[in-house]
Structures are given as structure tokens and as C-alpha cells.
């Protein structure tokens, strides 16, 4: 298995899949492409670089949730910029830019050191970062902003997990990926004037004011009560620990 993931063809396939969304500029290609790249990178860091058992799977699950979050917003929006993939000439232009980026990465990779990685993996990670930057540079929408950021974070998460196999680092980067997906998902909806003109957020008190207000106060009081009880319980426990450690 390790041989398969370490092979150059596997690296090339991952690189091509990562570059496809830039050329085709379509969410139907971009989101599955992200998932495919994450599967490949998880396999690579797990099988070749020995990242211990739950973490490659955690990376995959985090990206799958991010994929679902983005998908939910895409399915709701009527924004034409999300649903169209661009003219042939613009695709040709992006292909040209991608080609120039590939040459630059090829040239620059010798001078860049990514510790613990083989040459092929180093090239793949640099290529993924370059494609992410290109996507971020060319996008005018939150959707492809999200795709670019997630594509940037996939190699970052994998590489840093190899360098620092610490739960704190992996969890923080995972939280960042999920929040990026949530924020971009929110921005996809915010970009849609039509949707936001008739959709009222369920937390808005202007929606059925009387009922909403009573429900809001009752639910809020419940949350406050449970929250305070838990907070006090953990605070007392922490205070005892603190006293012992300070002592």
C-alpha cells in the first residue's frame, strides 16, 4: 500500500485532480476534487510518512464535513456565478496560467526545503499550494475562495501533522478547516441577493415577534442554566487543580 501512495503516478494523478477545478471552474468538479485530493493526501501521510492511526482518518472526516457544509449552501443559492463555469477563452487562459505556475514550481522546488518529505511529495505539496494561491487570486466568489483556502489547508494540515504529530496542532488546524468552510458557506448565501431578500434567519426576533420572543427567552434561559451549572462545576474543579499546581 505504501508503495502505491509513494509512487510518482499517484502523485501526478493527485496533482492533475487538484488543477482541474482551476481550468473547469465548476463546483461539481471542485468539491469532489477536494475530497479526492484529501483521500490521496491522507493515504500518503498515513502509509508513507507513518502518521499514527486516527489522524489521517480525522483529516478525511474533517474535509468531508467541510464538503457537506459548502454543498448545503451551493444547493440553496441561486447566484449565477456559483452555477456557471465560464467561457472557453477564460478556461484557456486559466490553463495557460496553470502551465506557467507548473513551470515555476518545477524551477523553484530545488531551492525550497520541506523537511521529512521525499522529492515527489515535496513537489506535490508545492503544486497544491500554488494551485490554491491561483484559485484565491482568480476568484470573485466566496465558493472558490473556500475551495482555494481548503486546498491550501489540505497540504498544510498533512505536512504539519508529519512535523508535529501533536493532537493540539492537528485539532486546531481541523477547527480552522471547518470554520473556513462555515464562513465561506455563510458568504455564499450572503452573496445571493435573491435568497436573502425573502429568507429570514430563524434567530431573528422580527419573525413572528411574540412567539419568537417567548421561545427565545425560554430556550435562552435553559441554555444559560445548563451552561452556568457546567461552567461552575468545571471552574471549581479547575480551581482545585490550580491551587494544587500553584502550591
Amino acid at each position, binding site marked *: 500500500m505504501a508503495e502505491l501512495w509513494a509512487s510518482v503516478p499517484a502523485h501526478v494523478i493527485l496533482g492533475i485532480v487538484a488543477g482541474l477545478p482551476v481550468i473547469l471552474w465548476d463546483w461539481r468538479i471542485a468539491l469532489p476534487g477536494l475530497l479526492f485530493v484529501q483521500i490521496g493526501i491522507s493515504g500518503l501521510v498515513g502509509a508513507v510518512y507513518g502518521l499514527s492511526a486516527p489522524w489521517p482518518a480525522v483529516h478525511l472526516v474533517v474535509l468531508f464535513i467541510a464538503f457537506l457544509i459548502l454543498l448545503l449552501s451551493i444547493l440553496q443559492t441561486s447566484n449565477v456565478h456559483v452555477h456557471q463555469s465560464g467561457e472557453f477563452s477564460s478556461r484557456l487562459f486559466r490553463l495557460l496560467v496553470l502551465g506557467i505556475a507548473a513551470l515555476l514550481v518545477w524551477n523553484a522546488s530545488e531551492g525550497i526545503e520541506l523537511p521529512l518529505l521525499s522529492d515527489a511529495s515535496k513537489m506535490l505539496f508545492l503544486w497544491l499550494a500554488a494551485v490554491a494561491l491561483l484559485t484565491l487570486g482568480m476568484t470573485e466568489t466566496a465558493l472558490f475562495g473556500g475551495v482555494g483556502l481548503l486546498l*491550501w489547508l489540505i497540504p498544510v494540515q498533512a505536512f*504539519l501533522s508529519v512535523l508535529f504529530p501533536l493532537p493540539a496542532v492537528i485539532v486546531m488546524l481541523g477547527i*480552522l478547516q471547518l470554520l473556513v468552510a462555515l464562513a465561506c458557506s455563510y458568504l455564499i448565501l450572503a452573496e445571493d441577493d435573491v435568497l436573502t431578500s425573502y429568507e429570514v434567519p430563524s434567530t431573528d426576533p422580527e419573525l413572528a415577534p411574540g412567539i419568537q420572543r417567548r421561545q427565545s427567552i425560554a430556550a435562552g434561559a435553559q441554555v444559560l442554566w445548563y*451552561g452556568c451549572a457546567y*461552567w461552575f462545576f468545571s471552574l471549581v474543579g479547575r480551581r482545585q487543580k490550580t491551587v494544587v499546581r500553584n502550591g
Partner: protein
Amino acid sequence: MIQFALPSFLFSLLLLEVLSSYIFRRWERGVSLINGGILNLVAVLLWRLPSDTLLFSIPFVPVTLDLRAGIWEYGFRFQLTQNNEPIVVIVLLLLGTGMLLTAVASQGVVFPPSMLLIGAGYIGIALMVDAPISPVFLAPVSIAILMTVSVFPIQAGITGEALGSLRAILPPILATPFILLAAWNMEQLPLNPQDIRLAAGGAQLLGVGLLVLLAPVPLHSAQPQLGESSPPIAMALTILLYQTLALFLYFQATSSFPMLFGSTALNVWLTSTAAITLVWGGVAAAAASHPGRLLGYAMLHDWGLILLLLAGSDDRSRPMVVSLFALRILSTMSAAAGLAQLRQATGSLEPDRLQGVGARLPWSTAAFLLGSLGLAGFPLTAGFSGHWSAIQALAEGDWRFAAVVLIASGSVIFGFVRMVGIFFGRLENAHVPRERPLGVVFSVLAILLVTGMAIVPQLFEGPISRTLLSFD
């Protein structure tokens, strides 16, 4: 008598404020006033307590605070030290002021709880003294997380334009891998002390990471875009909180790794990008007709000057950086307070709707103009003393830099002169309401602070010296 470690108290207080501002969101004005008042009170008390005080009893409550005790969670240690105390106070003051201003100009239902949550996160970063990796290296990931959450208050349900919010989160996310890779190099140094490539590589990566985090041109675009599309107080708080922590991190990194300047060309990178930033801020401000965008460009110009001084990296430039940044906070909050009230009264910041509002909303207009002009160093505003000393210092090194700063500042001032023409022209919209009494109080306070700092700038000397001591 219950005894709490200070970090526990601060996090509990902020959590209670988050919950109260969400649950009682229908009474936004009252809740924001109370929450803002409490935060400002805590900040002032924390600042005024002598540095050797260990315990503090809260009046009328059987609670004692252990000011120097730390708390440990999941390998992270949070503790108030002399080093991070000024940052905690600045964040608390910014949050408190933001909440108070929300009482006169609502920034959206989601703003108070989400901004308090984000503020709690920034305080957490400042208080972090120990972590699985050195806190200096782990801070950018935390800042990236907080900036991503900031998307919600700065977008505030506004439809259409979303790129500003997206671009605001780019610098910390892009900086994260560089700084963490630098951490790995630094951690390997004791194992391979002979390997000079490790030290040089680590310093290079840290330098690039810090530069990206400070977001000069070409990573600057969030500031003017947010100025145009976001609620003014949300925009000002998001940018100022981020920049406070970015500067803190920069000072910590340069103090902990002095080789940063020897092994890299960080000074050159900073000087060149900062010069472009301040010039671009000035040129674009001269052409901007939207007051929010104009404020964004004025902030960008001021930020460029701060970065230019930061590149000096000597003993003289650091006090100037801290002083300019303190005056920047004052000017920006004053401008945001005025602009938020103008937006509240007219419903939009489009120039055609602001025609002649200066006659109807004089105090808010004055607070906005005086605050914004302070960012360009206009005489008789808060920023004047800071800009003047900065220009003098730059002229001593190379007069051409001073000339560039003067010309760029002149451009920003030209932009505001055009804005004065719009504000004090013929009133187009007769339905614009007059200012509310509370709004007038806040605007007058802002004007007094801004002009007071221009007349008696030495009032800031004490706090700035104490802040500087904490960075050394």
C-alpha cells in the same frame, strides 16, 4: 470567600457577557451599555493596580482574584504576566468601547455576542504563556481561527459584497504554515547546533510568516473593502484587534529570536512593502468618494507608516510604533463612532445619501472627520504628534522617505476635504433624523479625546512607557 485565577475570571466574565448579549438581544442598547461599562471598568482596574499586587478583592462580592495565578488546560497555560498585561488591557478597552458604541448605532444582532467571543479568543492568545509548541509559533493558527469567526460580525447579514470578509481571513491562514515550519527548524536547533542552514531557514520562514501576518500590500485589500461594505464599528474592531495581536506577536518574535534581522532581509522586505502600502493608501484615498472606503484607505496609509517604522528595528523606532498604534486606535474608534451614527441615521453610506448631513448630524460628522484626519496626521488631531515625530525620524535617515510620507498624507487629507464638501453641501434628504442625546455624548467624548491628545500628547507617555517595558 472564593478565590479565582484571573484568566478564569476573565473567561467567565466574557462568557457571561456573550450569553447575556445573545439572550437579551432585544434589549441590545441596555445590555451593550452594561457589558461595555463592565469591560472598561475591568480594563481600567487591571491597568491601575500596582504590578506587585497578587490578590484583589472585588467590592461587594465574596470573590478574590489571584492576579498572577495561571490555569492549565490540554497542555496550554494561561497566565497574566507583565509581558501580556498591556495587550489584555487594550483588548478589553477595545471590546468595552465597541459595546458602548453599539448602544448608539446597532451593528447587527449577531455583532455583540460574536465580537465578545472573538475578544475572549484574543485575550486567550495574549494570556497563553505555555503550549505544546512555543506560543509565538502557535498564535498565528489561533489568530486565523478568530479571523475566520470574525467573518460573521463583519458581514452582519449584508448581502451582495462578500469578498472583503473573505480577504480579511487570508493573511493569517497564509502565514500559518511558514511560522509553524519555522517552529520545527527552531526546535531542531538544539539537536543540530552545527547546522547553520536550520537557523537560517527558520529565520527566513519566520520572517516571511511575520510579513504575511502584518498584511502590507498586496495583502491589504481587506481594509478598504471592509470599510465600504461592513458596519463601521465591526470593521474597526476586527482590524484593530487583529493588528494589536499581530504587532504583539512581531515584538515577541523579534525579542525571542534576535537573529531574525541578522539572518534575513526582513528590514528590506518591510521597508519596501510598507512604503508601497502608505503610498497606495494615500493615492487611493484621494480618489475615494465613499466615506467608509476613504476611512479604510486612511487606515491603510497609517498602517503603512507603522510598518515603515517597524522596519527600523532600533531602540528609537519601537516607542514611535507603540505611540502611533495607540493614536491609531483612538483615531479609528472616533472615526468609526461618527461613521456608525451617520450610517444609522441615513441608512447607507452612499455619498448621494450623505449630501448635507453635516448640518443635521454635526457631532457625528465632526467625530468622523477629526478621527479620520488623525490617521493622516492632520494638525490638531490625535495623530499629529505621532506622525510629526515619525516624519522627523524618517527625515534623519533618508529625507526621501519623509517626503513620500508627507505627500501621501496630503493625498489622504485631500480625500477628506472632498468629503467635507459632501457633508456640508446642500441637504438632499430632509428626512434624516437629528442625533440622539446618547450619540451626542459619545461623539463629544470622542472629539474631546482626539483633540485632547493633540493638545496634550504627553498624557500617553506613561501608558506607552509601561507598554514598552513589557515588550522588553
